[in-house]
């Protein structure tokens, strides 16, 4: 019996049978994300895209403040760690001085849609030829589950313990739809990574967002609606179900702007 298992595993790891592999652009550092979180999947997709495009030596990432502050530990490219919310401005400085390089930011909802709203909107409005990867999990994960700009109405967090009361706390902001209205954005899409089909779609979106930099036609922004099982106080599986039932109706998946044209 034991022999059989070993034989099967040998067949599986035979290179010609491999469907998925660990990207060589992922470092050996242990991921600091909670088990069940979507960050690791998106990191791997970026690593795959950068590797497959052969642009490792031309790519510079800008890490945010938040759960992914240590993103630079995991992807084997040059990185900067920006002040909270300022990644699009830092990326602007990099891109303006090195227009032929691939510059991307990786930001959460607190970083991109609260403290960095100004930098996000103006980088999009100037049409910087950069890629923005935006992870929206509706909560501040790193600081311990506080209300985010994208927290849903009625959703309980540590700073909205009785649920987000929109009459005093305002409404969840749809930054992706907002920046899609600006002529400086070229590709704007919203995806997820909780199921294999979604993972494949997100990879295609990330690839398009990087390839667009060659066209010099403005910002490409990929929002990934993700879970925060820890912050939401749920099991990983339950958090994904909750995300489908509650996050997706407010943040519908799909392309919002493609090749500079709004999707009707």
């Amino acid at each position: 019996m034991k022999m059989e298992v070993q034989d099967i595993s040998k067949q599986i790891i035979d290179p010609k049978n491999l469907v998925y592999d660990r990207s060589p652009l992922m470092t050996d550092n242990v991921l600091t994300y909670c088990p069940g979180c979507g960050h690791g999947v998106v990191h791997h997709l970026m690593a795959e895209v950068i590797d497959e495009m052969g642009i490792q030596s031309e790519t510079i990432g800008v890490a945010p403040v938040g759960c992914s502050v240590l993103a630079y530990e995991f992807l084997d490219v040059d990185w900067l760690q920006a002040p909270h919310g300022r990644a699009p401005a830092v990326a602007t400085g990099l891109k303006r001085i090195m227009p032929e390089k691939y510059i991307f930011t990786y930001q959460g909802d607190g970083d991109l849609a609260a403290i960095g709203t100004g930098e996000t909107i103006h980088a999009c409005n100037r049409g910087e030829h950069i890629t923005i990867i935006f992870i929206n999990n509706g909560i501040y994960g790193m600081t311990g589950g506080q209300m985010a700009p994208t927290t849903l109405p009625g959703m309980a967090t540590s700073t909205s313990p009785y649920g987000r009361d929109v009459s005093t706390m305002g409404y969840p902001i749809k930054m992706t739809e907002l920046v899609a209205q600006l002529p400086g954005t070229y590709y704007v899409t919203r995806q997820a990574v909780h199921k294999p089909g979604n993972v494949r779609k997100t990879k295609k979106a990330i690839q398009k967002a990087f390839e667009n930099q060659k066209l010099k036609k403005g910002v490409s922004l990929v929002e990934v609606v993700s879970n925060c099982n820890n912050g939401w106080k749920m099991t990983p599986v339950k958090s994904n179900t909750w995300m489908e039932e509650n996050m997706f109706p407010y943040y519908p998946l799909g392309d919002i702007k493609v090749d500079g044209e709004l999707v009707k």
Partner: protein
Amino acid sequence: MKKDILLLKGNEAIAEAAIRAGADAYFGYPITPQSEVLEYLMLEKPEERTGMVVLQAESELAAINMVFGAASAGRKVITSSSSPGVSLYQEGISYIAGAELPCVIVNIVRGGPGLGTIQPSQADYFQSTKGGGHGDYHLLVLAPASVQEMADFVKLGFELAFKYRNPVMILSDGLIGQIMEKVELFEQVDRATEFDQSWVTTGKTPDRERNIITSLNLQSVMQEKHNFKLQAKYKKMQSEVRFEEIECEDAEYLMVAYGSSARVCQKTVQLARDKGIKAGLLRPITLYPYPSGKLNEMADRVKGMLSVEMSAGQMVEDVRLAVNGKIPVEHYGRFGGMVHSPREVLEALEEKIVKK
């Protein structure tokens, strides 16, 4: 070909010198009394002259972070602003100092606090020389006293910034920024720098490990280690101290003043000597590092010192620390946008120092 001697405003001299010093990029946001820097640059089309990038940001927060991004590529990057704008820079400056990136930051100081006035002031001395943002760090601070020095210190600033991988501040004020003077401009410098470029984030090539520019250390023991490294660098920077002595050889009473105040005090030295008072002037050119050693030595030779600054008394604390109680040290200065006259300074010198 441009003539090498021009009549320029201080702010225009900064801009022209930035192009000539081989700056790769300028990022800024309009604010009085320094908007001529960005205006001059936009008019001059430096992208055609040298390939320099000039961009008007949407805010000072964005501008300093664009500096952060471009500086990480190991390029010569410069920005300018005035007091309220420089307050907004502080977060970014702290990150830039923590991540040890070279850049030149110009502050054309105006009266504060708050929105204050648009007239000249020297009330940003504490902010500039003691750190400014959060954490233990220092900028290397140059204080020009003429339009000529505004131009020269841009070039010097880049050299020092790259030498130490540290942000350099040119601390000027609305007076020097706005006056027009004859400037002899240095010749065009190449945009490339000869300094070490092994740390830059320009894309990981197969011949090296990836470069990471960050000011974050989650382990406090590592952050302490990083701070020790920074402190060692600041100690090394002490060798860059620069100052000018005016009528100091036989002086019995010494004024200490930088920038615009030093120009006022230069006249006061004349007025005092006309009255038979042997006054001298020590002008710190670097405010960090500070000429403490020179002042301590001078304290053995003079009877008293007057720190003259357009503030309620900031630099006077450094003069007192340098003198260490050997002789009386007093402060005089108009502030909130007011500039003292040479006679006002003379009266203060007589009242506070000579007659005591």
